[in-house]
């Protein structure tokens, strides 16, 4: 009996506390203060995940706890309720807050350089490596010129064809310089 009364009291207290909390929040769901539909909520989350906190370092809008982020999330909800599309909302944010909220440079104008340059540099590096490797391969395959030293071989282990080959290459390198 005592247990039941205790349980009833606990239930009443829980109802009272949660009722107070609900009233304090203005009768709205704290996770959905603007009363968005599930589709709008999903779209709001999608937009939040594409935008970044403008005053933090590498913090996405959906997980940012700054006041400015809360205001931005409210603005997204309000614009969705006005019937704006995802792109319209993102464009409006870029105009009002600047490109910093995209977390990446926009793919237009001078900012395009940031996208092109790394790829261009990698391609240029690959091209250079390819060019160099072909040059080295060609040189290795080119028949070696007759070396004057090969006509008068000196005695000892250094007089074989291997030495001639290296000497010829050294001469060729010296010529190039």
């Amino acid at each position, binding site marked *: 009996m005592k247990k039941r009364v205790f349980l009833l009291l606990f239930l009443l207290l829980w109802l009272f506390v949660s009722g107070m909390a609900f009233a304090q929040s203005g009768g709205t769901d704290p996770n959905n203060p603007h009363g968005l539909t599930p589709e709008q909520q999903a779209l709001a989350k999608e937009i939040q995940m594409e935008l970044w906190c403008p*005053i933090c370092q590498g913090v996405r809008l959906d997980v940012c706890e700054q006041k400015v982020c809360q*205001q931005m999330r409210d603005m997204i909800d309000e614009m969705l309720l006005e019937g704006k599309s995802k792109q319209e909302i993102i464009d409006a944010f870029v105009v*009002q*807050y600047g490109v910093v909220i995209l977390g990446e440079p926009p793919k237009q104008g001078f900012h395009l350089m940031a996208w092109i340059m790394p790829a261009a540099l990698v391609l240029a590096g690959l091209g250079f490596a390819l060019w160099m490797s072909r040059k080295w391969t060609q040189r290795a395959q080119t028949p070696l010129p007759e070396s004057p030293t090969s006509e008068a071989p000196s005695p000892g282990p250094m007089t074989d064809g291997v030495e001639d080959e290296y000497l010829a290459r050294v001469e060729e390198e010296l*010529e190039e310089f």
Partner: protein
Amino acid sequence: MSSQQPSSPKRRGGFTLLALIAIVGIILLVVFYYGILHPPSQRASSGQAPDFIVTTYPSDPLPPETLMPALNDLFGSHYQAYCVDDVQKPRPSEYDRVTLQLSKLRGTPILLNFWASWCTTCKDEQPLLESAWRRYKGQVLFIGLSHLDQDKNARAWLQCYDVTYPNALDLGGKAYNAYRVQGVPETYFIDKEGNIVDYYVGAIPNGSILDQLLQKLLQAP
């Protein structure tokens, strides 16, 4: 020796490539040293103040159904502790939707304040600025630029403190970036020739410091 021979096209190609690599290397070095000597975080602290063009906020108050939730959101349910008694009082229409361009304001010393409605320390500074504006009006023009802000929040803020000097949204953070501001609030003191005389990082803590800065601005040649 072979040094007398004319250079082959292959060798010329090699030299061209080396020259290109050297030029790219030199350009990268120049950019690197320019970056070191001119770090992007270095704020505009002297010389000619960067120009900006803004349109001031409307002076008519927001409708109560927008104003009250915005005040609640910015200041909490005890917003009366921060705000003037009549938060719905229209602000002076003198600066209603006016286009302000700094370069066209030569001849007037200017106090330029960067602020935001989401900024906590701005709450302490705002009453000081408004009070100083009422004392220095006619000698110094105060301009407030709200950074990363939204119309309803900024206007609710201005209603709350009954701000009567011109305020505008710094659209896209253009002025903020031009001055290389590092956070709000930040205040610049610009003489009548358009030169930065001084600046204050963070909220100006009290009226006497603000007075000193304003006197220095007025005494600037």
